[in-house]
């Protein structure tokens, strides 16, 4: 009876098969892949919603949808992209890469890892169901500002529950990441030797743990205001609608960095690999990332310059926000310095990384413009803001996710993608992205408010350009799907280290494709 036969062993491929395999898996690689596929399907869904928005905005007047549905599209496009697409994508990267990069067999809590993934599909289902409830889908924007939220129908409640579930999933994911990174590093893998990607996720997980309860509390208070006669935010009962905005953005601003910081991590792995030169200023990168994270707690109200805060508060938030430019600048300079005097080649991951660098910096500059309170008062809630955060989220986070996927795909599946098609995917994405979003700066400057289904005639030309760009961008992503499927089905076999300059341990110490359990026994890092 004591004969314990290596039960949790390498040869546990004889577990359940089919759907049960995925429902019950506790393997970090299976879960990572599920996260990535889930996020890609959410990306397509949210993207389809964006195309509804852009199609309606192709011309002034109401053509395709009514204003209620339009508002629902802006709301759920935002929620789905932020919580369903971008965040899970980077959690997928974390699952795949962190154990491989620190020399651990798996995540610290594999079963919790399984739960945190399987919370996502029900949440997504709730968000989809919310489109079909009596009273119509909620049209409040992803920011969920009351009192408008209080007026909505049942779909609002489903949305709030979905946010709760997504938050729970994020918290469990973060706990797993923190414990894995801190406790499961191989002997010799000190914190300051970790690949930067692990550092960025450690910091991100800290941010998530700090702000997720704030979001959960905020939406719960919306729920009780709606149904249980509380008056947290309802002015009719002495509540304060601006308080919600403070709470929301106290979560929301760190959330922006929760999305951006892992992207920085991916870029910090990709650029040195293709410059064939170590990352410039590793420790200053770590410190810059940490200071961005800390600053992100101190600047939330720059999203609310027009609510009428005391002028002293506006001044403070303006200065604090401008300060973020310093560590962000350090990161950009470090990346450029990494490329400097390297021996560069430009495979698809590198192209996406350079595209990221270029466009993210534009997003950073428009962020600086928006930090300046008197200017922001002009631009707040206009398309300038829409352009700004799409430069940060799409050209920032999404491009870096693409860079990461092309970079690690050979390690994950053991096969190469089609380099020519990959490059085509980059160029199509790059051009159409700019076509879609650069012109939105001009729309915003000229005074076009965001979240409107119909606009006055002076905005027509740029809106047409933007819509064309958006459709081009959306269709280019189908090419991406094709590239991935093609690589999985018939890609060439990848060598252990397909990228000459890649030097973190998942490349140097693990075979390709990576074995089911990464490092069953800790490697020794020297």
């Amino acid at each position: 009876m004591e004969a314990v036969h290596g039960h949790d062993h390498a040869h546990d491929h004889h577990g359940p098969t089919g759907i049960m395999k995925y429902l019950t898996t506790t393997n970090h690689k299976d879960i990572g892949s599920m996260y990535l596929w889930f996020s890609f399907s959410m990306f397509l869904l949210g993207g389809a919603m964006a195309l509804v928005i852009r199609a309606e905005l192709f011309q002034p007047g109401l053509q395709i949808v009514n204003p209620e549905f339009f508002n629902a599209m802006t709301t759920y496009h935002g929620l789905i992209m932020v919580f369903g697409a971008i965040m899970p994508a980077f959690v997928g990267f974390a699952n795949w890469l962190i154990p491989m990069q620190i020399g651990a067999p798996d995540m610290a809590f594999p079963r919790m890892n399984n739960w945190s993934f399987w919370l996502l599909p029900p949440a997504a289902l709730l968000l989809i169901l919310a489109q079909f409830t009596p009273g119509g889908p909620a049209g409040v924007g992803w920011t969920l500002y009351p009192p408008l939220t209080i007026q909505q129908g049942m779909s609002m409640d489903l949305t709030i529950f979905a946010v709760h579930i997504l938050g729970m999933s994020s918290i469990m994911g973060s706990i797993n990441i923190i414990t894995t990174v801190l406790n499961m590093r191989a002997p010799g893998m000190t914190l300051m030797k970790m690949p930067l990607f692990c550092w960025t996720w450690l910091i991100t997980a800290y941010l998530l743990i700090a702000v997720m309860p704030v979001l959960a509390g905020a939406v719960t208070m919306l729920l009780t205001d709606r149904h249980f006669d509380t008056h947290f935010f309802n002015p009719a009962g002495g509540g304060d609608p601006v308080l919600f905005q403070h709470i929301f953005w106290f979560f929301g601003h760190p959330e922006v960095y929760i999305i951006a910081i892992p992207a920085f991590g991916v870029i910090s792995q990709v650029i040195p690999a293709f410059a064939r030169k170590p990352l410039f200023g590793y420790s200053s990168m770590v410190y810059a990332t940490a200071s961005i994270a800390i600053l992100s707690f101190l600047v939330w109200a720059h999203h609310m310059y027009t609510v009428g805060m005391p002028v002293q508060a506006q001044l403070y938030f303006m200065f604090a926000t401008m300060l973020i430019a310093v560590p962000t600048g350090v990161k950009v300079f470090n990346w450029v310095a990494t490329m400097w005097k390297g021996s560069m080649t430009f495979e698809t991951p590198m192209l996406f990384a350079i595209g990221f660098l270029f466009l993210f910096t534009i997003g950073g500059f428009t962020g600086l413009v928006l930090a300046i309170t008197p200017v922001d008062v002009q631009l707040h809630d206009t398309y300038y803001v829409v352009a700004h955060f799409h430069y940060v989220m799409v050209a920032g986070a999404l491009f870096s996710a693409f860079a990461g996927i092309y970079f690690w795909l050979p390690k994950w599946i053991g096969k190469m993608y089609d380099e020519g098609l990959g490059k085509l995917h980059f160029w199509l994405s790059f051009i159409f992205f700019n076509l879609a979003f650069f012109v939105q700066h001009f729309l915003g400057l000229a005074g076009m408010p965001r979240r409107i289904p119909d606009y006055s005639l002076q905005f027509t030309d740029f809106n047409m350009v933007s819509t064309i760009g958006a459709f081009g961008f959306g269709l280019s992503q189908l090419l991406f799907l094709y590239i991935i499927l093609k690589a999985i089905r018939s890609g060439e076999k990848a060598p252990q280290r397909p990228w000459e300059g890649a030097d973190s341990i998942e490349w140097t110490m693990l075979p390709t494709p990576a074995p089911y359990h990464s490092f069953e026994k800790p490697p020794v890092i020297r």
Partner: protein
Amino acid sequence: MITRTAHTLLALALSSWAGLAFGEMRFNLQDQKTALGHAVYDLHNAIVVICLIIFIVVFGLMLYSIWKHRKSVGHQAAHFHENTTVEVLWTVIPFLILLGMAYPATKTLLAQRDTSSPDLTVKVTGYQWKWQYEYLDENISFYSTLATPRAQIENVETKTENYLLEVDNEMVVPVGKKVRVLLTAGDVIHAWYVPALAVKQDSIPGFVRDTWFRAEEPGVYRGQCAELCGKEHAYMPVVVRVVSDEDYAKWVTERKAGQGTPVAAAVPATATDAAPAEAAPAPGVAAVADGKAVYDQACLMCHAAGVAGAPKVGDKAAWAPRSAKGLDVLYTHAIGGFNMMPPRGGNTALSDEQVKAAVDHMLAQSR
């Protein structure tokens, strides 16, 4: 001068980017019609130019590196990965640049938020989906709704020039006068936004916020609600018509005549039904004047809009039960605070006499 040149450069750069194939496209903020707007416009241009310069320098270096330090031209990778001097430099220099930006930004912000000593105060209330304008000094009040016909929105008729930016009743203000706009809302949050006048302020139910503008030249300035407020969010434009003093006076007279009802402020107090005799000692003329000043400064924020349960000035029904309690009770409440009302309206510098004068003023206006 520098910013003017910068603007030209910027416009050139941007227009060459777009190829300028289209007719009338704007690449920058709308032409500003207020002094503050010019400051904001110049500030924006200055920041964009600074950003452009940094962008060109950094990415010039990057492109040079991409060009020269390629493997395909046989460049061997160097191995440096640290340099404390440059790292300190590129932390400190951006910081200094930011300091340079912060100075004009602070100056403009302080000007923007200075709503003191207005020539005219208009209270604007956002509703789903219209704006209400109340001229507090003139006692004019009207609603302003979209004038664009439904047929144009549904693409049945041809869209006219000011599609979606036209209203039935425009807000009319005199040129060159400092107009303070008090904002609140009746249902959800809206935002009152006129790009050419450089104003945008959220209107929040239960709260009063303010902003101001001083238009430099007559004209019609159009904007929109800027905060998502439900299905007709796109259909509640803001139109401000700036006219000469004479035209403004004429408009005021016509408005009042058109409104048809006698305006409380214009009619001398005729102690009638509601107020019991002992509660209505006719306040002296001097007290009225003094009381109005105090009212404008301390009480108006709440009592003009009826915030937090405050009785609105001019609302007879709201004031009747209160004045029934007797003037002394009102004085005591005003001085010592009552329910949501802070002592002395929140301004502890006021003397008892001043508070009493303000109460008298409000009573006189509300019966």
